[in-house]
């Protein structure tokens, strides 16, 4: 961190690029620990590849 820039307050906002399972988990954790989150997703909706999977090991839960 450059000291000459200290005059500008440190942002309490973060950004996540990608709305798959990893992006969603990052966003939730940060939102739940006191940060405002922008999620940027290229497609019309989030979910990523995991939403395409039928069932997952070991619980056979559907991926929704």
């Amino acid at each position, binding site marked *: 961190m450059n000291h000459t820039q200290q005059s500008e307050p440190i942002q309490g906002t973060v950004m996540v690029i990608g709305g*798959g*399972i990893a992006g969603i988990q990052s966003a939730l954790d*940060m939102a739940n620990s006191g940060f405002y989150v922008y999620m940027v997703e*290229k497609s019309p909706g989030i979910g990523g590849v995991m939403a395409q999977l039928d069932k997952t090991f070991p619980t056979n839960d559907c991926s929704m």
Partner: protein
Amino acid sequence: MLTLSEVTDISGEEGNLQVKVLQHPRFVDMDKCIACGTCAEKCPKKVEDQYNAGLMKRKAIYVPYSQTVPLKYAIDKDNCIYFQKGKCRACEKFCPAGAINFEDTEKELDLKVGSVIMAPGFTSFDPSSQDTYGYAALPNVVTSLEFERILSATGPFMGHLSRPSDKSEPKKIAWFQCVGSRDMNRCDNGYCSSVCCMYAVKQTLIAKEHSDVDLDCTVFFMDMRTHGKDFDRYYEHAQEEGIRFIRSRVHSAEPGPGTDDVLVTYVDERGHQEREIFHMVVLSTGLEIDEHVVALSQRLGIELDPYHFVRSDTFHPVATSVSGIYACGAFTGPKDIPQSVMEASAAACAATQPLAVSRNTQTKTVEIPPEKDVTREPPKIGVFVCNCGINIGGVIRVPEVAEFAGTLPNVVYVEENLFTCSQDTQDKMTAVIQEQGLNRVVVAACTPRTHEELFQETLINAGLNKYLFEMANIRNHDSWVHANDPDAATQKAKDLVRMAVAKAGLLSPLHQTDLPVHQSALVVGAGVAGMTAALSLAQQGYPVHLVEKSGTFGGNALQLHRAYQGEDVSAYVKKLTDEVSAHDRITVYPESTIQGVDGFIGNFTTEIQTADTTKTIAHGVAILATGAREYKPDEYLYGTHKAVLTHSEMDHLFMNDDPRLKAAQNVVFIQCVGSRDETHPYCSKVCCTHSVESALELKRRNPDINVYVLYRDMRTYGKREDLYREARKAGILFVRYALQEKPKISDSGDQVRVVFRDPILDRELAVEADFLCLATAIVSYHDQTLAQFFKVPMDADGWFLEAHQKLRPVDFANDGVFLCGMNHYPKPLDESIAQAQAAASRALTVLAMDTINVGGVVCHIDPDLCAGCLACMNVCPYGAISEDKEKNVAEVNEALCKGCGACAATCPCEAAILMGFNNQEIYAQIKGALAA
């Protein structure tokens, strides 16, 4: 949430970044769209559906899939007839909400953020160019992602196992592993994609379940890489189920003569060429980074490796070369869901660490409508019956169930939904509850385990107490298990609805109270994982107590020479230890043990026995990072012959530059010593890579040395595959052995004689080895006492059991307690560090709160009915019940109670009442069940 958006540029410094985002037009007003689907129904243009891997068509106006968030339609401009040819606008004409906006434009947004996490994911390798497998030419050769959609109930064949060419049910399917992975000839992907072996095994078993015949499944593979937690058991199970596993890289797939079948040519392990007909072939395609992601990374200056994954070092697994930008998921290297989720949490921790001073400065609070008092109202029940796509509706006659629900007492409103859980249905449900004045809600759908919270939130939004809600599980308990008997399933659905409605009528609102959170943490274990977790939390501003049973910090890492990318481990451990010791928010307790734990999330009290005294500390969260140890075998002359070593012992020779290493002529490694056998039926994950690293190190020190690695499956997963390739190039010999035919060792003076069978030569070979390095298992400490103190479960192998293996990999079911490192499962340093940062991130979600809610579905003991027998206290698995000695009755600590109801079932006086499941409610439910 910014959908249809892409980041074009990031400038500034960590803490103050300016991000340019380009938001593409949706052409549908998100505020107006009610997701009714009329537009897509009327749209005349059919487009290949990417969600279904191109196996189905969607329209030019679409939602990617029916549970999409946000559930709002979008127009695909490139395929829209109006945009391409200037007329149509059918969607606009038919949209009942007036949501279509053809004038919508691209927007450029300038956003200020402190840091950025890149989680762009992967694309599945496109095998079109590999004509030997016939993907482009043969309709019944599909990719694994296409097969995933074929198996899915929302897929092209509605979950019926069918092959694309003629929709007939295949009776014989082959899987080809490593398509687009571990291949430098047909593509440039030298890495192992890590996930394909396991998903192929899963697909074989699920396909068998979906099939009406005894499906013949064959997997062609090179090494079976089922190295994750419980993965090897699953692989064994698949073998028991009759799945055929053939060790061979398939030569070619050609059209079967005169049919749509596929003729597969391969060479078996003995060198014989075989030809076999399959009805269908699944290509287990690897993971790749999308070219747009590569372009963005280059623009932002993020350094990538030659395979386009982020170049990250072992000790900073989620950092990129650009300060302020972090990465997680498949972007940092191919990995499975639990590992991606761990890294995601780790990135959240790392990315917010420099911003900790600004915590809670830019968040917004949610407005919750005031709760309506319904206690004096007669029950007015609304019933929502879900089709779950075809999951329920394909078996149960949902309209009949809905009609039946309307005839039940107290039911004033009934609705049938395609997906009750979708966002638009939730919004509608909120409106319906308010308009109809509903005061109890029943949803007949899936399981409360996954969906109760979602529906309860809808009740809260509608101003109802969230406990005035009941679910009837007509999917898992009904349509799934009675798929072959629709009449009986429909009848059972009615029974389940009748039971739920009977109970719902008696439900009363329950309330929760706020308890303050003690904003400090306890970390048990000061290995690399424990120290990383402690340091992360301290740097985020919270006090940490770090307890270590031994006198030194660093754990197993002290025994390691180098990490897999060549980094010096001891230098890093020293730096980490110094930082931890110097940090003013960390209190260290060396040579100390935990003597007792009391309390619950936000409010734990722990007794620590140090070398000279006992201390009691208060903390809000606990992270268990107690590690594991290297197995010391009692075979292969270990402990009796000085030439026989374990990995850590060989690393000591490296660290001490032992002269014997230079003098050695022959060194043999034996893999899976104590792993993947009866005593430890799991893969220890780290040993293959460790052997390859050590073998290469020996070659570097003495290029003339002969090194043999005797293995069962080489599991150098992910980017580690490069090391394996390098080792083979360096002339290190890899010879496979079978569990039934282990290598034989005998004393030969200063050396040991190693005799083993080479399966390719089909001959027995003997080597006089100067060193025999045993790649021994990683085993658990089996610390049951610690598990009991924190009320956390352990699996059969002694690994701590997380709350959910995919989605909650560092949480325990006991709230406020987290895990990381090797007590979860054997893992290399980079994964331990990521998991430690993840545990810290999850702990932060608790520490960042001032208060937590307790109450709701908990037990209450009526002191007037309690006889003081304390039977309840003995059955409570959470230690939530104690004795009030003055009144001679039992009482419940609401914060510890998990609402399991064991006490209520045990109490002979019916004094223990489980709120939300009291006797009257349960009796009503039973009567409902028997009323048919």
